[in-house]
């Protein structure tokens, strides 16, 4: 990636926390480049170090080692005062919103502008515009306690955009919201990315969030990047165990079968294939049946994907024939580990 197209560059980020009885290394050397204008996802299980990693981007947490660059500027080398200046070009939103409870929505959005010395009248004007942008034009005088979770997150987004940042960092921004509200907030983030060209970093433990809005994704596991690539690539063929776990897990009652049944395979149909009765044909042509354990359809970067978990017959010859049939039709087939 050419330097001038890179918005965020993390190089060799390590983070150790001092604890009772020694030190705990939470990040073991993370290298990531995030391009200007992209929506980059970071996904991992609880405790993987996702929050610690985003907090290293705006140096809420100082990395023990490594460098952080924002648009070519090395943040880790800046003195406090200049770092504060740079932070104004990075908005951040949180799972728990963290609004000022004693201020109205409007005053909350004005807050970062007060901090950076924008004249009051101008700040208010911009705050109203931003609240309009996030669809809360009629709630300017409400206090956070009077708003729903989704509305609070919208205020937080408006607040994060107030200083016209280049980057928006979202740490589990939708994890406290119900599915409908989540969809609304994600759509808003995508809209902001497209309209304002702001680079967005999305931290989540939900694959569906990544699939919904991200261009690229890094899977973090135990403080290391396990795999990284386009969302499409990782969705179709997750290479690592953790990647498979996150992708297969998604939207299905995975515990019910994964690892418990033999001969389970995950099949991914690209685009229109999922509309064709390909499975039915395969069963007729091969003269055998499969057991459908779960299935769903995803839209990733304007493409339609269908994924299913299928249990194939015990008989090896028939099984291989069926799998061969599907692969020939351009379907991705992967065995699900059986333990």
């Amino acid at each position, binding site marked *: 990636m050419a330097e001038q197209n890179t918005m965020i560059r993390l190089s060799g980020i390590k983070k150790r926390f001092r604890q009772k009885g020694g030190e705990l290394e939470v990040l073991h050397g993370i290298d990531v480049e995030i391009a200007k204008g992209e929506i980059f996802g970071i996904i991992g299980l609880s405790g993987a170090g996702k929050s610690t990693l985003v907090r290293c981007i*705006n140096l*809420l947490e100082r990395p023990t080692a490594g460098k952080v660059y924002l648009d070519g500027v090395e943040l880790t080398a800046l003195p406090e005062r200049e770092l*504060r*200046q*740079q*932070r*104004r070009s*990075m*908005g*951040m939103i*949180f799972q*728990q919103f*963290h*609004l*000022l*409870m*004693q*201020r*109205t929505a409007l005053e909350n959005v004005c*807050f*970062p502008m*007060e*901090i*950076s010395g924008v004249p009051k009248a101008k700040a208010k004007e911009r705050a109203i515009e931003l609240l309009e942008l996030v669809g809360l034009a009629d709630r300017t005088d409400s*206090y*956070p*306690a*009077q708003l729903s979770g989704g509305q609070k997150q919208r205020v*937080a987004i408006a*607040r994060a955009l107030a*200083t016209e940042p280049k980057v928006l*960092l979202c740490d589990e921004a939708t994890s406290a919201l119900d599915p409908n509200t989540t969809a609304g907030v994600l759509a808003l983030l995508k809209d902001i990315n497209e309209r304002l060209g702001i680079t967005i970093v999305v931290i989540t433990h939900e694959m569906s969030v990544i699939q919904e809005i991200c261009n690229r994704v890094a899977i973090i596991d135990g403080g290391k990047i396990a795999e990284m690539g386009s969302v499409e690539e990782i969705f179709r063929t997750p290479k690592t165990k953790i990647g498979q776990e996150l992708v297969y897990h998604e939207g299905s009652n995975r515990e019910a079968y994964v690892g418990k049944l033999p001969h389970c395979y995950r099949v991914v149909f690209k685009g229109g294939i999922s509309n064709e009765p390909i499975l039915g044909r395969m069963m007729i042509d091969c003269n055998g049946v499969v057991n459908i354990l779960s299935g769903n359809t995803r839209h990733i970067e304007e493409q339609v994907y269908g994924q299913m978990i299928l249990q194939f017959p015990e008989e090896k010859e028939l099984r291989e024939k069926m799998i061969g049939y599907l692969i020939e039709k351009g379907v991705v087939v992967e065995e699900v580990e059986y333990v």
Partner: protein
Amino acid sequence: MFKEGMLALVGAGFWETIYMTLVSTFFAYLIGLPLGLILVVTDKDGIRPMALVHQVLGVLINIIRSVPFLILLVAIMPFTKAVVGTVIGAKATIVGLLVAAAPFVARMVESSLKEVEKGVIEAAQSMGASPLQIMLKVLLPEAKPSLLVGSAIAITTILGYSAMAGFVGGGGLGAIAINYGYYRGQTDIMYIMVILLVIIVQVFQEAGMRISRHSDKRL
């Protein structure tokens, strides 16, 4: 039962008590509020951790707080004399009250400010707020309802101290209760003073709670 002039005496004592309490509360906050802020800011998970400052200040506050009020009042008499030129009466009591109350206020302020969610402070930091901006625009305003409750408690505590100061030559209702009720055995006067003090405490406490509730936007 009331001699002529008693009513005037009680009236004067009442206003003197109110005056001593409010003035010393004001000065106690003038000193205690910044100290409370410093305690929170310099704490190890504060926005400017400074272990030494935090500890020295904490120990100093604890020392003053652990001396019983009457003993403290007597012990600082030379200081009181130097500041207001006398060791008896309302003015002298105010000095004693604020010395005793400032550390108490500092602790009250500290505990109020600690109620402010850490995430909100981090959000402000992520926007590039300086420590001073965080203190003035986040910590104090967000803790306002709790600070107001604290100030009601502080006022009523200081009122109690001011009554005690009657023993060592302080003015106000406490002095009247002690001089007439205790030294001259006029228990009815003592009871009247006690009732008045109870009423004042009630009024301040209730007013403080109401203002706090009214100012709190968390509903």
